[in-house]
């Protein structure tokens, strides 16, 4: 659509876990922006589509020392040996070199779900049903984003449609480069606590690059070597320990933490013991 | 890019090899038909499916081997072992009796016998008459139907000479020679076909004759007894007497198709 070739960027996020209130506005905004179909009545937390998903963790202590924290998980846009891209048999996953965004092509997806097995962050979602919108709701669809069909995988793509719109606007204004803030994904825009900072990690002047280098920042599952581009920040040691550390070696973590996902029937998981 | 080429290259190679294999087989099959090798091939292809007891080498009959199974579909013409044995031990000069009497069955020794119980009898005028031997005739006595080849058609050694149907058995009689059919007859003349052999003369190297007949038929009778015994029972041996003219009538419950396949070498 546009003929501009901007300088290659490496878009990433810095999410402040101390600001996140768990309100879920980011989840709603994401679903609305990206035409995620409403969940069927039979859907469970494990079959619903949530490109952005807020997990809740607690420090496992009993009242009055109980503390909770919220961790928004979305596609981490892995920068190295991207697990999902490496395994897709149809090359339906592509990393855009100009932006670093890991893009999913549902039109080419076969629905084999190998990428879902490969993703350690569980950021990929399958259309277990045919997407259906109740009568009248189709008016709320975002015309810039294609809907998907049943049997294909989808995930966060940093609201790629908004990137195209921003580039078109810049081109119309005769500019090659985007102003900072001209392109923000829906979750960033919707967060009332401004917990998510988005920008070009390679731009030393950008806020996100500064935050990423900060000592309070960490990434999930760093030792896997996937170089995710989502940095999480917290000043609370217990949150950092819970989220940044690899699996605790001494005891099953379920006894100290409780994830946001309700346990499915018969999983053998115990409710957390009160310390 | 290189890995792309290697990967796809390997698979296209595999597909090419597979297609070539199938195509080559089809091509060779067509060639076989044009070269009139088809009947011989049909026999060679099915020969290994015969049970081991039916594939005994003729030289086991005459005691030259204790145990030997034929591995060339009874085509002694090309067999080096047979040629070597014949050269080493030429047949006796003494004249043979006119006919062999084996268990009361008559086997004239002026003719050559095929393992499939057809005989070939060279005539003075250069043709060869072909008929069914005493054992074979008793198995398909009073047949329900006989299908003889048309006059002028060509029969091939080890191919089908003619077809007989008897009580559910659909039998093809193996031809003892290659040649053109010049006359056919029902068995009233004692023969079924008169054949002009290819090459002018009968090549009988793969046919049994003379002293081989007795041990061969003795074994065939053994096999027949086994085939006629009801399943699971031990075979019984007659202790005298000549087999009746129509053996099928004497065994109304036997699976006649199985019995005939056993004796007429139909896999």
């Amino acid at each position, binding site marked *: 659509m546009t003929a501009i070739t901007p300088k290659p960027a490496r878009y990433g996020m810095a999410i402040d876990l101390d600001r996140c209130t768990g309100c879920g506005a980011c989840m709603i905004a994401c679903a609305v922006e990206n035409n995620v179909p409403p969940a069927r009545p039979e859907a*469970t937390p*494990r*079959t619903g589509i949530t490109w952005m998903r807020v*997990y809740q963790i607690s420090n496992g202590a009993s009242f009055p020392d109980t503390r909770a924290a919220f*961790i928004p998980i979305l596609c981490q846009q892995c920068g190295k040996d991207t697990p999902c891209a490496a*395994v*897709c*048999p*149809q*090359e339906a996953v592509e990393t855009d070199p100009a932006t670093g965004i890991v893009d999913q092509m549902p039109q*080419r*997806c*076969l*629905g084999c*779900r*190998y990428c*879902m*097995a*490969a993703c*350690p*962050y*569980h950021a990929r*979602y399958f259309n277990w*049903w045919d997407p259906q919108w109740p009568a009248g709701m189709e008016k709320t669809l975002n015309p810039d984003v294609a809907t998907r*069909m*049943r*049997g*294909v995988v989808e995930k966060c793509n940093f609201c790629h449609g908004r990137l195209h719109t921003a580039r078109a606007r810049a081109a119309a204004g005769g500019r090659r480069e985007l102003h900072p803030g001209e392109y923000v994904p829906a979750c960033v825009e919707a967060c009332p606590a401004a917990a998510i900072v988005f920008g070009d990690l390679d731009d030393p002047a950008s806020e996100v690059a500064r935050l990423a280098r900060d000592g309070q920042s960490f990434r999930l*599952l760093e030792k*896997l070597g996937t170089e995710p581009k989502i940095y999480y920040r917290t000043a609370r040691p217990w949150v950092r320990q*819970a*989220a*940044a*550390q*690899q*699996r*605790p*070696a001494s*005891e099953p973590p*379920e006894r100290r933490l409780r994830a946001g*996902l309700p346990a*499915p029937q*018969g999983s*053998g*998981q115990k409710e957390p013991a009160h310390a | 890019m290189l890995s792309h080429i290697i*990967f796809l290259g390997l698979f296209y190679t*595999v*597909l090419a090899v*597979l297609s070539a294999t199938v195509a*080559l087989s*089809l091509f*060779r099959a067509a060639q*076989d*038909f044009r070269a009139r090798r088809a009947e011989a091939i*049909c026999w*060679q*292809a*099915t020969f290994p499916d015969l*049970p081991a007891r039916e594939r005994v080498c003729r030289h086991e009959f005459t005691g030259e081997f204790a145990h030997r199974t034929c591995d060339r579909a009874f085509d002694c013409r090309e067999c080096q072992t047979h040629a070597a044995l014949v050269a080493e031990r030429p047949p006796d000069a003494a004249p043979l009796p006119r006919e062999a009497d084996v268990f009361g069955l008559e086997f004239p020794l002026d003719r050559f016998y095929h393992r499939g119980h057809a005989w070939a009898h060279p005539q003075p005028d250069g043709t060869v008459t072909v008929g069914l031997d005493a054992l074979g005739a008793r198995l398909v006595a009073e047949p329900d139907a006989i299908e003889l080849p048309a006059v002028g058609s060509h029969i091939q050694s080890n191919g089908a000479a003619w077809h007989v149907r008897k009580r559910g058995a659909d039998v093809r009689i193996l031809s003892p020679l290659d040649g053109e059919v010049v006359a056919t007859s029902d068995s009233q003349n004692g023969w079924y076909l008169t054949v002009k052999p290819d090459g002018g003369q009968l090549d009988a190297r793969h046919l049994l004759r003379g002293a081989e007949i007795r041990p061969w038929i003795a074994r065939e009778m053994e096999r027949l007894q086994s085939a006629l015994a009801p399943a699971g029972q031990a075979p019984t041996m007659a202790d005298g007497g000549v087999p009746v003219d129509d053996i099928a009538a004497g065994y109304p419950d036997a699976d006649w198709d*199985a019995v005939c396949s056993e004796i007429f070498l139909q896999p």
Partner: protein
Amino acid sequence: MPKVDSQLMPRGVRRSTPRQFLLWILPWCALLAFGLYGAGLCLVKGLNQTNMDNRFAFGLWIFVDLTVIALGAGAFFTGFLLYILKKRELKAVINSAVVIGFICYSGAVAALLVDVGQPARFWFTFWHPNVHSMLTEVTFCISCYLTVLFIEYIPIVLKNRKLRQVPSFLVFEFELHKLMPVLAGVATFLSFFHQGSLGGLYGVLRGRPFAFREGFAIWPSTFFLFILSAAAAGPAFILLTTWLVSKISGKPLVRPEVLPLLGRISGILLVPYILLKSIDTLVWIDSTSPARGFAAYQYYAWKPFGPWILFAEIVAFGLLPALILLRRRLRESPAWLLSAATLVCLGIALNRFVFTIQTLALPTLPFDPFMSYLPSWQETATFLAVVAYGVLLYSFSFRYLTLFPQEKDLSC
């Protein structure tokens, strides 16, 4: 009708009466119908009919596919031993092995077509192949190999008593058989790669340290381990199925030395497999998994997957049957032979289970729970449809084709 039926059967062997045969196949047909209904529901209504979800993206079907493909390896391995290494004794079982291989692979492909979300897009992998993905390699290889199995099945069918009366069928079969070593070589090459790539599917998952393995060049150790285990399981499965068919039909089908031979082959291959698997497990516990931030023993802290599962896979279902199968005295006792062969096949199934199901059950994110999964009735029905299809195809093949050439010699 019985007359036509008996004319289609091989000569010189006994088969059940048409009525007995009908009684045998009717329940399997019913099971097939029920299974097709379950599969049909999944195809029409979508994969929400299964109990798979975003955490358990692979379930019963993938586990079953990997297992039957490993067990069906007997087809290629017997072909390799017979046509390339000229072990003539295996002629006794090669036809049955080819039919079983064909059933396993065609059944697996059919299940896969139901498993993917968009079956009509199956050709995308061939049109846009990602040559770096193990699953692409699997797709290509299995498609080619199924073709090879089909080509190897044709001669068996053409040798049917009625069909072989058509001279062109027999001559074509004869010419094709002359080229069988070529087909066996291609089959071995393809099987080597796809059995390996099925292991590679899990060994390359950097995001799943439970499954991830280092290896040689682009191939993780699971690539080679899967090939070895499939080669060991193949003869054991042929042994079991031959015995089973012999029991069900009530006839001896192979000479007495054939089954112990298959057991011995299986035992010989099990030894390097157990050795390499043990080394691989130790390396994984000691360095591969901890390097990625996951101490190995915490995988086994989740019920029901305790350390017993490692012991079961390597010792009870691996080392133990290997020791049994390598002793001639034990091989010649049917009870020991069959038990050992069963243990081998169970061990391979357990290995595939560990990689497909346990990998997905174990959490990766620190705050994730252990996941569990049980297949829905539609998934189970689809699996049973494949089983019923296999039994039916084999039953018809056994009745009308010569699957066991030695049967004629043994039936007099």
